[in-house]
């Protein structure tokens, strides 16, 4: 079973993203960074899709493009059959409804001046939906007390904040949950809890998950398919179990060797 047998939900083809560095010299040309060099991938409905790569491999850039928070230099992205590249924000409403993100660092992804109630309800308010009792419902779903709604983000621990971020992402009942290294900024002791919470919610709500991480073992924990990225390109795609046992690309092998194992420790 190489890939999921569902219908394609996100189809990216030949994505390229070039960043221009500011000029540092009058005579030399400005530096360019090729963050993505022709990346294509397909995420099917209901799939749990992992993207693995070390920092600088272009995975965060790819994620921003998939969420239409940045525009590709070339290439196209179709979401549910509809082209989203180059669309102005006002025509991306359907995407904002269907696709929500959990960011890496809940310390910085939650506005410090807003109460949890407003943070969680923000996607609903922004998309013009009624809030009603949804905040309490969502807080309950992520295992936080309803009283949390009246407090500010700085009054919570890292793990609790990531729960708030997850509640917020689930508010508009999205079809796809995108997670950008959602546990990298957290204490090792709470990583498992947050990963399990996400996996449970994805199961329960029948979501499609796109999960980005630098850690193959974390991806293995929640995903069934994985794309391995290196230097702006996808070097290997396939079922996580296959790749875990039999990596074909040398970079994937290197990544696997970087995973700490019990044997390695002994």
């Amino acid at each position, binding site marked *: 079973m190489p890939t999921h047998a569902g219908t394609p939900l996100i189809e990216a083809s030949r994505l390229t993203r070039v960043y221009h560095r500011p000029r540092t010299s009058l005579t030399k040309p400005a530096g360019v960074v090729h963050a993505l060099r022709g990346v294509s991938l397909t995420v099917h409905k209901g799939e749990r899709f992992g993207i693995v790569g070390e920092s600088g491999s272009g995975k965060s850039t790819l994620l921003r493009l998939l*969420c239409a*928070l940045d525009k590709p230099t070339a290439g196209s992205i179709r979401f549910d059959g509809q082209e989203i590249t180059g669309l102005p*924000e*006002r025509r*991306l*409403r359907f995407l*904002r*409804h269907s696709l*929500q*993100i959990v*960011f*890496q*660092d809940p310390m*910085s*992804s*939650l*506005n*410090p*001046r*807003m109460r949890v109630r407003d943070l969680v309800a*923000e*996607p609903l308010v*922004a*998309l013009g939906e009624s809030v009603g009792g949804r905040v309490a419902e969502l807080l309950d779903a992520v295992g936080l007390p309803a009283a949390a709604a009246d407090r*500010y983000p*700085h009054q919570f621990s890292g793990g609790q904040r990531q729960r708030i*971020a997850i509640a*917020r992402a689930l508010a*508009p009942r999205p079809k796809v949950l995108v997670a950008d290294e959602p546990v990298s900024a957290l204490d090792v002791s709470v990583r498992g809890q947050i990963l399990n919470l996400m996996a449970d919610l994805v199961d329960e709500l029948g979501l499609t998950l796109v999960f980005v991480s630098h850690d193959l073992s974390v991806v293995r924990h929640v995903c069934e398919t994985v794309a391995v990225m290196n230097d702006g390109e996808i070097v290997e795609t396939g079922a996580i179990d296959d790749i875990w046992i039999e990596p074909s690309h040398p970079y994937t092998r290197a990544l696997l060797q970087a995973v700490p194992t019990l044997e390695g420790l002994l």
Partner: protein
Amino acid sequence: MRGHLNASLVTGGALVALVVALALLSFVWTPHDPVLVDAAHKLRDPGGGYLLGADKFGRDTFSQLMVGARTTLYVGIVAVGIAALIGTPLGMIAGMTRWRWLSELIMRVNDLVFAFPALLLAVMLGAVYGAGTLTAMIAIGVATVPAFARVARAATMQVMVTDYILAARAAGRRRLQVAFRHVLPNIGSMLIVQASVSFAIAILAEAALSFLGFGTRPPTPSWGRMLQESQELLFSTPRLALWPGLAIALAVLGFNLLGDGLRDYLDPKLRRIRAER
């Protein structure tokens, strides 16, 4: 989020409160009519109902100081208000726009105004529209716009690269909503600090303009004009210059300290850095 009270904040707050209290009190009560010319009390020494004495026209110095505080605050509030209302949106636009040229245009025009001295602007406005409190306020306000625009732009740019702005966009917020719900609340403390510092500069500018005759018109009492009127008696009756001079100095000091104190109070990060030093 918030820090503890610090010495600058308390001292500055007390000085500002004193000026505000005197100004408010002057609406309902002053020891004497501040503009009443009374030859019988000409250059009267302090005492007997005249707390700080009287000037060469027999006007009570303390009453004049009280009403002068009113003028000072009035000019400061309007000038800083003009600067904040124009400068903040300009700075936010420059900090948020996707078009680099627009940001550059705003900031270069800003530099142009910044390079233009407030006093010169006031003198020019005074020459064209007639000198008075209103032209002085507008001139000081316009000259203060660049300071606000710069602070607002720098703070906005800091906020715009944070994850919560990205998160707000991903949640479907439009740019204007991002500006009002996310950027403004997070740059607010910097703007308050800037307002306090600008207020001090405005007080000084108003005093200078009134001293030069381009500010508040007689007979409305103003600290700057009190100084100017006492000029010729500087060596015979120095107290006439001392009191308004002291009032200006303390008010300016008060607003500067308040700004400093607020900065530390509202920005715990900075306080921590200072404590570590």
